[in-house]
């Protein structure tokens, strides 16, 4: 897998870079959604995969970002690009505030609170809180991106915007992996008591994970709002969170795993759209089968990201 990874990445990036020119508009739309979901799923992975907190409410943060962009653009006339910082900060802030009181909960108890937050969020949207969210309709007809006076309305330009966001996210993930903070999350997942006994402030790092994850998901929300020129509550409901959750588990908590997870859980069903009523029946079987065949995910997280010079003296081999 190591080798695959070394050659895999450049090939992947190269393919992704030319992809929109090979696809018709429908598949361009699918590809863009793939990129958006990949970013959300990677953000979900920070909390779920890396830190081991069962979060089933990631669509909340995704939606917060999308709505932040939509509201600022439609009600206050901000250009789409200018909304990005807000679409990152608002979810991040909410991530921190919501995580504060709940990160001490274990496993399934945390799961339920995150589901609860997600449900509350959707109801707030539907009830058109403060006249801002557009009720059950959501908000339609947002502007296109504007970059240096260039109106980026075409699908291809939205694609590259989404791609840039994915690259940015991957860079963040890499930084996280090779830092004290990122490792702290891993330690917390493996054994919280041991981690605390070695000096890790569990609370702070768990909240950090939520905040970071929410910020990234919020950024993906902006891309979503750009792509559909619209946001509506059901795009961010609990079922959507379940999808992100499953993506990380099916894929395995690694970057290639998450990308593959999005492919399997989102793109494949699109390909098999012709099966119409049979689609989800078969898809359900596929999910079960995927887990049975690869219980740790298609491409499981691999540990041992340690400097090469430490590995050299392995005498006996594994």
């Amino acid at each position, binding site marked *: 897998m190591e080798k695959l990874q070394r050659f895999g990445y450049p090939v992947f990036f190269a393919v992704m870079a030319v992809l929109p020119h090979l696809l018709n508009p*429908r598949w361009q739309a699918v590809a863009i959604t793939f990129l958006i979901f990949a970013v959300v799923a990677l953000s979900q992975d920070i909390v779920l995969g890396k830190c081991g907190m069962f979060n089933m409410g990631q669509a909340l943060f995704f939606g917060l970002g999308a709505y932040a962009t939509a509201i600022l653009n439609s009600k206050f006339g901000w250009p789409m690009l200018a909304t990005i910082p807000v679409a990152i900060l608002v979810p991040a802030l909410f991530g921190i505030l919501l995580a504060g009181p709940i990160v001490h909960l274990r496993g399934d108890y945390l799961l339920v609170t995150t589901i609860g937050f997600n449900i509350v969020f959707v109801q707030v949207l539907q009830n058109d809180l403060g006249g801002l969210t557009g009720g059950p*309709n959501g908000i339609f007809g947002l502007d296109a991106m504007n970059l240096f006076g260039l109106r980026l309305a075409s699908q291809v330009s939205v694609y590259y915007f989404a791609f840039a966001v994915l690259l940015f996210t991957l860079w963040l993930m890499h930084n996280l992996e090779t830092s004290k903070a990122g490792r702290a999350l891993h330690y917390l997942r493996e054994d919280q008591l041991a981690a605390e006994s070695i000096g890790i402030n569990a609370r702070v790092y768990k909240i950090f994970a939520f905040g970071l994850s929410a910020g990234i998901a919020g950024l993906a929300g902006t891309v979503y709002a750009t792509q559909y020129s*619209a946001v509506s509550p*059901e795009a961010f409901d609990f079922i959507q969170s379940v999808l992100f959750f499953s993506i990380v588990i099916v894929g395995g908590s690694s970057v290639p795993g998450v990308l593959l997870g999005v492919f399997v859980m989102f793109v494949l069903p699109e390909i098999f759209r012709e099966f*119409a*009523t049979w689609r989800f029946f078969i898809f359900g079987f596929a999910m079960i089968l995927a887990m049975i065949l690869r219980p740790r995910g298609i491409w499981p997280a691999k540990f041992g990201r340690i400097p090469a010079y430490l590995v050299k003296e392995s005498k006996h081999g594994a």
Partner: protein
Amino acid sequence: DTLKVGVQAPITGSYANEGQGIDNGVRLLAEQINAKGGVLGKKIEVITCDDQGTAMAAAICAKDLVNQGVKMVIGSYTSTCAEAAQKTYFDAGVIQTSDGTADSLTEKGYWTFLRNSFPNSAEAEFAANYMVKVKKYKRIVIISDFSTYADGLANATEAAVKKLGGNVVSRDKIKADSQNFTPVLTRIKAKNPDVIFFAGYYTDGGQLRAQQVALGIKADFIGGDANDNPDFAKLAGSAAKGAYIVNVPSPDVLPYDIAKSFIAAYKKKYGIMPASIWGLMNIDGMRAIIHGMEQTKSFDTKKVVEYLKNMKEPLPGITGPIAFAEDGNRKGGSYVVKMIQADGSYKHVYVQ
């Protein structure tokens, strides 16, 4: 070389039977037209996309259909899905005709959108008038679910009732498909209402009515148009009797000849009645657009829409005469109030 007609409808999901009804109808009409030589010499080719009743799938469908080169799109059933797809069709100059009744559908100025049903506001005014002026209810309760359509209809009705000086004692919401409505109804019971107006779908409406009667709430029950489905009476069971439903006339009582022949053909081909009047509304929308193409002798959608909005005489339709106003709304529209009989059949008690 064919004329491509898109169908965007919920083939799966909660509204699957409505969506499949639209699809069936469009395919039947296309067959009939093709048998007569097609449109301006081109045969119709139908392309269906399943929007599952969700906005996101609808957005993807829109891009897909546009890409496949459709000239017109029939559907979708829900306002939410029609709305999510609107801008894409507008950008591509594809005519969209939907039975979605949310007022917002025609408020954005997309010339590509033609509503083949009547907007919520029309029904709301009719219903309000019936409740306040005709039945002289003093204490009115309005309930909806959270959907675009239902919430919109309920809000419009509330506004219309208030405009007529009526008294809305409670405005509530239920969660669609949640089945348990007794808590809300119990609260309403305390308000001692004369009538409960429910602006939601029949699946909830039937149960709402049953639970209303079970709780001993004496008020009348008036359901909005989406309650017009035989299952309403089945769900409400013995409680169905005496409930009112507001709608345009039902398919089986449609007095028009075209209606009779089309429904007969439909029954012959599919072995069932059309799911509801909504599918037929969409068929009328499609007929109008094709009529426009034939009259203008052109596939230029802009010209066709121009023509349709300026017709001198409305086109006779399955669901009544059809013509469009400048904003894309269907002109005219007549509503009736039906009361459910003990055997589940309807009796028209008030006609506009």
